[in-house]
């Protein structure tokens, strides 16, 4: 692990994050914008899966918003890796950061369950249909996990490493 941290600290990304004025602040800014794109679209999509807005938001609106959720996620992945590159030796030992990564992985797994298990069924339903309990649980898990990602992420700087 020490070798990996040392390697990350030597990358060009880490140098930019350390040496370019306000690079960290700009990354934080884009990280927050990305989280709003990701979580805003997820809130709407998961609310629909849970049965809210049945008459006013088509079940298939979920698909139209997915690219924007992905853009938000990619923005956060990029800026997140930049944070880690500069400060890997503080991030990896931080239990708060570890929980954040765990919740992101679980949210990703949850999305894969939605994509491979429920998506095709949902595509055949009418616009105002209510989805089954399985898809509702996926929606509830999704919004819960992403809220936990936000909370644990926000607390990383204040929790500190050991």
């Amino acid at each position, binding site marked *: 692990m020490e070798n990996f941290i040392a390697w990350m600290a030597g990358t060009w990304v880490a140098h930019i994050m350390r040496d370019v004025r*306000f690079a960290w*602040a700009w990354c*934080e*800014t884009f990280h*927050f*914008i990305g*989280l*709003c*794109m*990701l*979580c*805003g*679209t*997820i*809130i*709407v999509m998961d*609310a629909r899966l849970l049965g809210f*807005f049945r*008459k*006013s*938001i*088509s079940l*298939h*609106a979920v698909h*139209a*918003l997915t690219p*924007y959720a992905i853009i938000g996620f990619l923005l956060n992945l990029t800026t997140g890796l930049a944070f880690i590159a500069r400060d890997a030796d503080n991030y990896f030992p931080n239990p708060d950061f570890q929980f954040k990564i765990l919740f992101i992985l679980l949210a990703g797994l949850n999305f894969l369950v939605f994509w491979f298990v429920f998506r095709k069924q949902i595509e055949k339903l009418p*616009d105002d249909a209510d989805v089954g309990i399985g898809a509702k649980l996926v929606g509830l898990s999704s919004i819960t996990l992403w*809220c936990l990602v*936000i*909370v644990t*992420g*926000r*607390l990383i700087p*204040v929790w500190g490493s050991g």
Partner: protein
Amino acid sequence: MSTFLDSLESSAIGTWVTQSPAGFYILLAFHAVGMAMVVGVMMVVSLRLLGVARNISASALPKLVNFSWVGFFINAVSGICLFIGEANKMFNNWSFRWKIFFVAVGMISTYIMSRTILKPAAAGDISKLNSQSAKFQAIFLMLVWVGVICAGRWIAYIGQIEGTG
């Protein structure tokens, strides 16, 4: 003013924010989730006005705005508590002042969007959703909320009036 700000910091809320780690963490957590509710959901509303996800009907949009107002309330309460804990530092920081300015502009813009575009469209005047005004207001509102995020993030880096941090 500084006497007033000092009294805020030494109040029960101010003391709780600065001396209770749990209190500070809880407020930060609520403020971050509230931000996603406000900015994130309003991004979806703005995207709809720009022609994305047209299968979100006009009647959904005022409801989504109402949901984002809940997020705004969460942020107002958590933000006021956080401010009270560091009243002197926040009041004397230009990034914080710009953030509050952008928040005020965002609130007014959201209200105007609701009155001129979203509620008339929900009542049946669908042409409002496709108007140039709708597109302009959508882009303007997104820029304002991005301004809130930028100014909020940069409080820690710039804008502190000398001798007040």
